[in-house]
């Protein structure tokens, strides 16, 4: 067992973890319900979190390696987060289970590449599965985030 300091959504969460404890399980035990196991092998994206701004499949990540790393979960995003709001406006959810992962992938992409094209958005999201098939709305939401950040006009929701 190892003592670690997780920095989750800006708050320090000290804890003792086993060497094999997954970041996914530790975050869920801390109440972060937006972090979800969909496959356990890093192939669906439902467990995505940001670590120092970079996306991580928390189902493959050992918690002990995230001592002191700033973790962001979708449920910890600020009120009026622009990516969240554009997902809501674009109706980019059906069952919604996978959506927090897409939101964080969107944050990562647009921080790196504020002018991401549709093809670049698709390339960045290829590891996230939305079984309800909400991909078009998700793409629109992220295009609208980029447009709003540039003060362009945005696509109206269906």
């Amino acid at each position, binding site marked *: 067992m190892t003592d670690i300091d997780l920095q989750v959504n800006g708050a320090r969460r000290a804890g003792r973890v086993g060497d094999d404890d997954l970041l996914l399980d530790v975050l869920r035990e801390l109440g972060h*319900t937006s972090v979800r196991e969909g496959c356990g092998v890093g192939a669906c994206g439902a467990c995505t979190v940001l670590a120092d701004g970079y996306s991580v499949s928390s189902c493959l990540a050992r918690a002990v390696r995230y001592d002191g790393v700033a973790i962001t979960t979708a449920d910890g995003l600020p009120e009026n987060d622009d990516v969240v709001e554009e997902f809501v406006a674009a109706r980019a*959810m059906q069952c919604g289970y996978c959506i927090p992962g897409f939101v964080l992938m969107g944050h990562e992409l647009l921080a790196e590449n504020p002018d991401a094209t549709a093809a670049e958005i*698709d390339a960045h999201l290829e590891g996230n599965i939305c079984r309800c098939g909400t991909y078009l709305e998700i793409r629109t939401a992220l295009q609208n985030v980029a447009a709003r950040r540039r003060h362009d006009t945005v696509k109206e929701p269906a």
Partner: protein
Amino acid sequence: MTVDSHSGVSAAGSDRGGAVGERWARVDARAKVRGELRHAADEALRSCLDVVVTRSTRPHAAIEGIDATRARAIDGVVDVVPGAELHEILGDAIFTGPAFADQPCLAVGKVRYVGEPVAAVIARGHAAARAGAEEVAVDYRELDAIHDVDAAVLGAPYVHDELRPSVVFGDLAHLHGIRDTNVNYEYVLRHGEPAAPPPGSTTVSHEFWCPPTHHVPIELPFTAAWRDGDRLEILSTTQTPSYVRQSVADLLGLPLGKVRVRSAPLGGSFGAKMYDRLEPLAAALAWTRRTAVRVAVTREEAFLLTTRHGAAVTGSMTADADGNIVAADADVRYDTGAYADVGPRITAKSGMVASGPYKIAQAHVRSRCVYTNKPSAGPFRGFGVPQVTWSHESLVDELARARGEDPAAFRRRNLLREGDVSVVGTPMHSADFVGCLDAVTAALDWEAPIERPTGRYRRGRGVAVGIKAVLTPTISNAVLQLNQDASATLLISTVDMGQGSDTIMAQIAAESLCLPEGSVRVVTADTDVTPYDTITAGSRSTYHSGNAVRKAADAMRDKLIDIAAARFGVPATDVKLTGDGLVSTQTQETASIPELLHGHFGARGTTLTSESEFRTQWQPYDKTTGRSPQVTEHWFAGAAAAQLTVDTMTGRVHVEHLEIAGDVGRAINPALVEQQLTGAAIMGLGHALFDQMVFDEGQIVNGTLLDYQLPSIHDVPDKVTPIVVENPHRTGPHGAKGVGETTIIPLAPAIANAVRDAVGVRITRLPLTSERILDALAAQEDS
């Protein structure tokens, strides 16, 4: 895009409340996006022991012995329960299932598929339970196994010694105790007199195959169960809380009132989380061991819980010299795996549409449900219909081509119209196949010639139509509480799993009561609280629960009007309910709902309650013809058209345009309808191109998401157009019907027909992988 009504039924007068037909936001939209909506596994529970099962490594074997010594020695393991031990306590009640009572929650004496639960390990913590499950040693005596559906039809080895139909369905009773067969149910349809093909006629015949596939809702199945005094409580990821309550009550010999089943918003399901999944095991362990248990499975285990039926179809179709379809024949074999689940119902209800939505003088269908030593197949979005549609829409296309006719024009001539009687004997209403076909072909600009390059990339177009009957008979109930402040609480057992039922049921209630967006809250299904509902499945909820909700809300409006009439001192006929409250047309006196209820009860915070039930009826199939004048309450009609290119070097398909349409009667919320049309089509695209479970001697070889391919954002066509066709149903709530399955049904044949158009090969086995396309192109070159 919406296509207006052309049928005689008017939806006039239903626009009163300003809610129906509006694109209201999903009730939990922001909570979903932020991941704050609580799913079953997110609920805070009392302290539970974890359960992991030891699974069979053999497809068919007798269990000679189970040694749990090493498992019990693991730190944290509390108990190891073999199936035989539960069988001793519960007797044959351990065998459950919606159509056949054939599936034990832990194997008793025998295993019938690789992955079948054999023993349950109960432990403090999931890791200890998992470690324990791996240490349970099972001594098997191998039996001959049967994996192929057509071999299983022919005879031994038999998966079950005798058939065990459940008590639920009277029409299965004659199958009780039948031995020496793997065919657990057979449905036969005979329409018209067989005759020799007329002169100048054209006949096409093919063998078709759809492989088993998996639903893969991203939320994994989860069940927790515990005793609360002399009651059993269950929290589960289920589409069917009312069914689970009855099934668990039967399993444990408890009255219904002593079993409580709660569901939660589901992270997708598509048929995976219904009937008996993890619930019987959790219930049996919690009850017999007097402990609280939690069963959470991995993705690899979820693949073993249920599948979509693999299906073989031998089909033929004949058109006369004038281009009218005069005969159709289909022999359908559904591979239901080791346990029947709802396979027999699929076999009948999908078999009956195996000749498609066409006017046909003579049709013969034989549809069989067949056991094999594979994981059990159950309901999957489309309920077996996509498999037969794969056959009839491929055949119709070949028939048109054989006659040198445009496939869309050929279909248009032969499609059933309003009032036409289908081959199964039931008339069509609010099922505009022609309208759907015209909508998708117009969206694709079908009449205009397309550029057809002759090099490596070839372009083609295809179209297909689908028909499905809604599950009939079924029951829905609704209880509505109007709160004194004019908000409302709606109690129904429909489960929102992404289809948006919590939103559209709120819209239907709000419509009757002139309430604004956001004012109606739907309570999550809880059998202690919410009334009976048959199932949330088969696209039945908008029509059935929607009707119950509408009746309850209309009854509430009548109550308000009566109370207002007494207050105003005028007859009820002089009182109207508007968005501002109640008004007397005679005296112009008004009262808001809060004022009216405050006055009525003399208190704030009060509730006024109304309730309703809604049931549909059918006439059972005629025993010799399989026909019925009322086989279903209503029909679903849909169509898909695709334009794509085939890379003749790699065999890869790229879908450029996908146009999809469904006749939904009336869209309660057009935005949610469009999402269902598109979502089902994208799922269907996976079935068309790559999605399949691969088995080797009964062992699934691609049962992880590293190996099992699902549609990603890269698979979305360049352009997708969902088209809402509206021909109001005479008894639908505001004319509405369901939509969840409509566009998955014609999707795969539309793609295959476009591939046929592009490169001239007819592929009859799904999916259309690159290898299959390249093989077909090579065979074409050889011939």
